[in-house]
């Protein structure tokens, strides 16, 4: 038998290499690049904190930051709640359950880009079916993503339509992993349905909830495709999320330094929030 102290590292090496090449190296390039300036002819130079300084004095940046934080504050708990609710709904045996589960998960199969284009047509003010329906029931046509007030909520709706089924799967797996014996014990002790949920289900779902919340947060802070396709940051800057600002800085205004500075700040924000979320959803054992 051949073994050596290096065996574990050798087995881990491919995964670590992947992590290094596809995750850590680009992050290092981005953070390093945020301290760089680019001349018109493409020459790089070190400019220190100039990009950050320029960002912090730019009202457009603060506006984007505010909108991004507000967007995430709304969408993350919302998607978590909806995923949980849907998982509970499709957990117990029902006739035709397979159909409901399939329909709920189906939006996952549509790419983000295509779904944004489809929603653009679906929500159109003059030709969209949804507005046709709203007019018919008497509510009246809504401008949706063409209105400063409704645009952000429209994007939240589109993202939730697409993501709810996906996160529901993880919550469903979490629900299945709770042993039935625990519920039986609670019932024997006289717990009501609500008490069973509050004292058995919720605590035992901490880990799946933590996973869904953290993964969802990271994804939603990087929310980009529907903004790019539907609103271009408008109307009136109402949907100008940081990721879109970063993209626009790089590829419409060829200001790579500014774009990387925004990405670095975004990375910092996500790290802080993810750490907070982990602390929030610690299990009692971890707290010790």
């Amino acid at each position, binding site marked *: 038998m051949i073994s050596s102290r290096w065996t574990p590292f050798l087995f881990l090496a491919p995964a670590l290499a992947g992590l290094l090449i596809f995750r850590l190296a680009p992050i290092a390039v981005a953070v390093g690049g945020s301290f760089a300036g680019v001349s*018109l002819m493409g020459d790089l130079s070190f400019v220190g904190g100039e990009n950050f300084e320029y960002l912090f004095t730019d009202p*457009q940046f603060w506006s984007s930051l505010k909108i991004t934080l507000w967007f995430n504050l709304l969408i993350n708990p919302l998607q978590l709640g909806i995923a949980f609710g849907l998982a509970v709904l499709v957990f117990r045996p029902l006739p035709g359950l397979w159909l409901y589960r399939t329909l709920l998960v189906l939006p996952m199969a549509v790419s983000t880009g295509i779904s944004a284009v489809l929603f653009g047509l679906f929500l159109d003010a003059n030709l969209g079916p949804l507005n046709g329906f709203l007019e018919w029931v008497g509510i009246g046509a809504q401008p949706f993503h063409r209105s400063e007030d409704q645009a952000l909520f429209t994007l939240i709706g589109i993202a939730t339509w697409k993501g709810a089924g996906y996160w529901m799967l993880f919550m469903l797996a979490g629900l299945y992993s709770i042993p039935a014996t625990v519920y039986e014990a609670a019932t024997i002790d006289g717990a009501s349905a609500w008490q069973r949920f509050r004292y058995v289900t919720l605590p035992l779902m901490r880990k799946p909830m933590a996973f869904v919340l953290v993964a969802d947060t990271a994804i939603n802070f990087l929310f980009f495709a529907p903004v790019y396709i539907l609103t271009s940051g408008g*109307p*009136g800057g109402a949907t100008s999320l940081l990721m879109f600002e970063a993209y626009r800085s790089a*590829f419409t205004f*060829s200001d790579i330094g500014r774009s990387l500075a925004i990405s670095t700040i975004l990375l910092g924000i996500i790290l802080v929030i993810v750490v907070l979320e982990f602390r929030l959803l610690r299990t009692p054992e971890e707290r010790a």
Partner: protein
Amino acid sequence: MGFSMHIGRRQFLAGAATLAVAGSIGRAAAQQVTLSAPWMGWPEEQVAPLMAAFEKATGIRISAERLPITELFRTLEVRLQARNELPDVYLVDGPLTASYAARGHLLALNDMLADSMDGFLPTTITQGTFDDKLFAMPLGTSSQLMFYNKKLFADAGIELPSAKPEERLTWEELLPIAQKLTKAETSQFGFAFENTNPYQLLPLPQSKGVEVIGPDGLTASGYVDGEGMVAAMTWYQELFQTHKVGPVGTFQTGVTQEMFGSGKLAMMIGGTWNLLGFKKFETLDFGVAPHPYFANAKAVTPTGSWHIGINPRTAHMEQAQAFVRWLSTREAMDLWFDLRQYPPSLETIWDERAQTTFVDPAWEIVRHELANTATPRPRTPAYREYEDFLRTAMQDIQTGADVQVTLTRAAQSIDREMRKYR
């Protein structure tokens, strides 16, 4: 006993080696240069014949990737900034010549086109020039017409607008006509512009003599959000929000064209390409009139069109130059005119077709506009930034945003991005 072959390891390896050699010889013979060319997302039948004609003439293939207009600009930015050998050739929107040339993304064409430059209309050469060198060859120019639906006018009992430039309608005269032709109950609208972008709408403030950019081409505050611009854009907003004569929020060119073609829009200001494009609407009976202007002010029309440029880093320099040289020939320009009907940049085409194509009232109007009212877009290396922010602002204004606030924000953003050129 017949012939039998033993296929052992040696035989297998020998066979595989022979196949590989034969295959690589075959592939080398079949290898052909294909030029990568990001192109505008025009209908297939308006692009493919041009590429096919070039391939027939030279044997060089062009892979034209058709993209919608905003996609095209962004895609070009992504690829050009990578500063590698792609794309080989690409479409340059006239006013963007300065932007690309200033950043080293275009090859100077003076030497290559030295003989043919005199044959072009001078204004078209100017638009493709930066720093006194020609960086992008004009494929044509553009002009705008007011298309109107004869049947809708007849049904409403309104006199048809005149096609004579001297009897041009004023905006003040057009509004009541548009109001009469707007019927909310049948989703019929009276008037719309084909596009919601600076190319289409800058003539509104320019008609009143408003300066839309600073004299150095690098200042937006005080111009983009100045009094004159605000007044013009407020008038534009009222068309949609107050008088409601136009459909709100339809920012795709194809949709507006479709609305006019299917009789849902009575008047549309659009480019000469619609003269061909509207042919597919069999029941449509349309007429043309000149672009309106503000009473007691100047008549101004949009102009300028697409040019073709070469990426200086291309790996196929010879073939790329062959493509541009071929495009500058009379045959290619003639074919291009047939496909999309942009007013030609080559004078011979105007002369040759003077008695055939260009006797149409539409072309009479176009010739007048090109000679008298055509106003090119602002010349600045920061045109991309200027246009992007202003386009978003115009779309927001159409959907009801506060005009002054929107334009001030756009001006600030433009100025911020212009700093790298100062």
